[in-house]
């Protein structure tokens, strides 16, 4: 008896987005990171291709980290005092990109000026040649003051700037248009809003092949199953031909995993049978990342070098 062909045939695919510009293209990055382009569900090699493997961006703040456990700060040492040194360490740890989180511009965390933020991103760009992500502080008014300065300072480097939201996207769209950057559209774990933000940004004239989606990441116990289902539905829609959902996806397993006591809690603070934090913490981050990979994720923002190393080995095995 002929065994029926059960392979899925998809009519759509995920857009390919290029992050970083080399000298030939007007930038100073040593390489271009391409994400997206998938023609099937995650890692089902018999049904589709993954032309660009998922990549890791390591997180760097513009100020020393607040509230990071020793297990997390120890690998970096005093490099954490300076964003450029911190980024250099991340490069050594194997990061594919650097994600600069501008925590210090937030009114509650120092209220750094646009000029100060600009200096930080420029120094990081001058110290490492990896493609860059620059992420605001989530306070819309301040972000809108700071985006233009940082965007212009990195003009031509084809960075990934974030984030554009349903009620605050025009400034970021304008900057990214003017300076040739890609942008991240954000939605609060709501797939309908995600699609709407993509449309709003495209209506404002921004090209779809320079958009990366951030559906919001929740850790285990903090909404991971919700995030997972949204990553998955978005990916299914893209493969089914919905061009407005056909963008690569970015997630934040680093920041989210380290919020949980399973990672953050010191050996004194948690039950003994949870195991030593120096394994427990990175493992928690690793598992958060691999879970989201299965749902369809292209860029993982991570923190601990051990989690990064294991994640990259894991991806290699899957491909």
């Amino acid at each position: 008896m002929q065994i029926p062909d059960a392979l899925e045939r998809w009519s759509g695919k995920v857009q390919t987005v290029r992050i970083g510009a080399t000298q030939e293209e007007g930038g100073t990055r040593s390489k271009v990171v391409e994400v997206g382009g998938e023609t099937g569900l995650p890692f089902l090699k018999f049904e589709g291709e993954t032309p660009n493997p998922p990549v890791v961006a390591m997180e760097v703040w513009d100020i020393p980290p607040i509230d990071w456990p020793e297990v997390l700060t120890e690998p970096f040492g005093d490099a954490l005092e300076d964003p450029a040194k911190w980024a250099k360490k991340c490069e050594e740890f194997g990061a594919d990109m650097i994600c600069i989180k501008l925590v210090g511009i937030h009114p509650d965390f120092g209220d750094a000026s646009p000029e100060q933020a600009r200096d930080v991103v420029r120094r990081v760009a001058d110290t490492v040649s990896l493609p860059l992500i620059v992420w605001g502080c989530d306070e819309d008014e301040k972000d809108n003051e700071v985006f233009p300065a940082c965007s212009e300072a990195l003009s031509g480097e084809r960075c990934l700037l974030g984030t554009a939201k349903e009620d605050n996207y025009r400034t970021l769209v304008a900057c990214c248009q003017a300076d040739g950057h890609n942008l991240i559209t954000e939605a609060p774990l709501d797939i309908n809003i995600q699609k709407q933000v993509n449309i709003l940004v495209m209506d404002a004239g921004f090209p779809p092949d320079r958009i990366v989606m951030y559906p919001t990441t929740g850790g285990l116990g903090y909404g991971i199953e919700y995030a997972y289902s949204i990553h998955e539905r978005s990916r299914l829609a893209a493969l089914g031909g919905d061009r407005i959902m056909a963008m690569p996806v970015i997630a934040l397993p680093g920041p989210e995993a380290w919020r949980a006591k399973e990672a953050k809690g010191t050996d004194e603070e948690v039950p003994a049978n949870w195991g030593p934090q120096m394994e427990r913490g990175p493992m928690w981050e690793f598992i958060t990342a691999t879970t989201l990979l299965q749902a369809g994720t292209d860029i993982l923002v991570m923190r601990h070098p051990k989690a990064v190393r294991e994640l990259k080995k894991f991806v290699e095995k899957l491909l």
Partner: protein
Amino acid sequence: MIIVGERINGMFKDIRRAIRKKDKGPVQEMALRQLEAGADYLDINVGPASADKAGTMVWLVETVREVTDAPLAIDSPNLEAMRAGLEACKGSEVMINSTTGKQEDLEAYMPLAQEYDASIVGLTMDENGIPGDVNGRTEIALKILASAMEHGIPTDKLFIDPVILPVNADQRQPANVMKAIGEFKLLSDPPPHIIVGLSNISQGTKQRPLINRTYLVMCMAHGLDAAILDPLDRELMDAMITAELLLNKFIYCDSFLEAYRR
């Protein structure tokens, strides 16, 4: 939802005049406007009054081909005109509109579909006319499906049409057609496409656009996935898009009508 734009038909005054005068403009404009409005195929019909059916068909096809490569549906009951139209479309995607379930028609049109690698519409009517009930339609549908399989036509190129009658001709038929659509979906796995000539439902009635769009949505709920209609009727297309949303065919967003049209 596969949309076949119905407007390039000699029964419409503007197209009839253009055919008579051999004026390409109105035909080409109508082709582009229908495509812009969301048509996937353009139906090409010389209309009832045409004398040289085959020649006119070729003229229409070539005129449209000057401005677009979009798939065409050759719409003619005349075999010679059908063949001429298919020949003029050679090398591109084409649909045969249509064959009936009559044995002699199937034997004439299925080989054509095979020869031109065309999609084909099969009307569930035969030498006894249009069946009054659901079973009669399903029987003929099965016959058409079997003939398609015999001739190596894949299911995804077969479009079965349960034949709509005007609502004021027999008010029992709209419900029968809907039930038939549901039955046709069970004929094979995967099932063939199901198509209707939507405007027939309101032939000779008032409130034509309202009747058309209401019936389209009702049929979609039963599994209709293709229709020959007027894509320039914006409210009709809005209703079609909304029905697809309600059938979970795409993800909702506040600008869902705009999103669909992008």
